[in-house]
């Protein structure tokens, strides 16, 4: 993984309009970046990213949309917001990542970490169905979909005996209002 960080950036689909698009959609201006690297210095996960936060901003400036949509970092940013507060130019990198991830998701670009996308999807399905997230059914569904039957059996037993596994979730009464919020989302079509 470490060696991969130093590979040349792939600029497959250069479009110089991306910084403007990001400015409008995310209210953040990548052209203010002075490449100081404070974002990458503080990043919890930069050591496992294929592109560090500083490089991600450069990719936006270069209009390397294709690389941004396919990169692994898109799916493993923990959104801890440290880079937002450290950036001297006020660039909101987690928001840029949210925007690019939404774009990748809508375009059906295969996620580098498909389990992350699956987990988000199952969670949103739960919200669409009941208005809330019931942790236990969500985890069970996730285990079956990923076929990781044995991964957390010990943990599951401990949680069961602590009374932490609650199979029920109260349904929001005005569920139709919640469901209407899903009309424009791809999640709506899959269920």
């Amino acid at each position, binding site marked *: 993984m470490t060696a991969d960080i130093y590979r040349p950036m792939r600029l497959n689909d250069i479009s110089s309009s991306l910084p403007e698009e990001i400015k409008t959609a995310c209210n953040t201006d990548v052209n203010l970046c002075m490449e100081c690297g404070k974002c990458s210095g503080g990043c919890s996960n930069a050591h496992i990213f294929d592109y560090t936060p500083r490089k991600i901003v450069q990719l936006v400036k270069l209009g390397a949309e294709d690389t941004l949509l396919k990169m692994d970092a898109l799916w493993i940013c923990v959104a801890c917001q440290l880079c937002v*507060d450290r950036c001297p130019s006020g660039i909101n990198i987690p928001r840029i990542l949210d925007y690019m991830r939404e774009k990748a998701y809508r375009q059906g670009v295969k996620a580098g970490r498909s389990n992350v996308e699956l987990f988000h999807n199952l969670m949103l399905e739960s919200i669409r169905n009941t208005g809330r997230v019931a942790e236990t059914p969500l985890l069970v569904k996730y285990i079956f979909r990923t076929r990781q039957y044995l991964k957390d059996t010990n943990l599951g037993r*401990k949680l069961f005996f602590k009374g932490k596994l609650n199979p029920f979730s109260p349904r929001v009464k005005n569920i139709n209002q919640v469901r209407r919020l899903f009309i424009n989302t791809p999640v709506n079509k899959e269920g």
Partner: protein
Amino acid sequence: MDIAYYPGCSLHSMAHEYDVSTRLVCQHLGIRLHEVPDWNCCGATAAHSLDHQLAVGLSGRNLLLVNDMKLKQVTTPCAGCFNRLKTAGSELKIDSRSDEIEKLLGTSLASAREVEVAHILQVMIEEIGLEAIGQQVAKSLNGIKLASYYGCLITRPKAIARFDDPEQPVSLDHILQVLGAQTVNWSHKAECCGGGFTASQTDIVVDLGGQVLEAARQAGAEAIVVACPMCQANLDTRQTEIEDVNGIKYHMPIIYFTQLMGLAFGYSATKVGLNRLLTSPFNLLKSRGLAV
């Protein structure tokens, strides 16, 4: 004092003890919490990760419900919900897409923008105050050495949270000191525990959570105190795996700050749900005469 209460999904499920202890401590301090009727999930990491409009809409609906209660302020004990509700409030002010969300919800969001959102830790500090909390202490925490862990979203991003310092916060330390505990100086107060990746990228939680546990151990902490159900779940449920990877037995209880407030106010350890934590805090509490 009347405040709307948004527990969030975790507090109705795995983090039940955080809900119970929050309600108990608030009642003790004269804060009347009114649960938001018919609240929906804030969307958590999933919604903002895949759909911006959906994320703002889900939290926008909750803010509207608060306004319908004729209350101006809502509090939540979950750092994730806090961040989502507050982000929605701010996005609705500037986002041109709020028009579309209004169409979907079938109602105006104007009033949702006025609702104030506060984390429960913030309510304790800003509305109740350390002096009033100190006056309620019936049973001192007897110098127990604690690492106060804020995680990411209680104080970040600064422009959204507007509470305490984004990287060197002190509010939780102050509360624990007033309760009679010592708090350690340590490096990972506001580092990330791995957030919502506990199921889908367990390695990340083991890595980041492991750094938090190790930092607390090195600082001499006997337990970590949290104010977020996700921080608690990650550090507690993944502790065995972290121990296997780091080759160290931590036995580090991960306790909600409201549980310790309740304990110091004179309630029993089981009343505040300390028996529901996976890593048992009872040996530690017994050694200080805080549990039987």
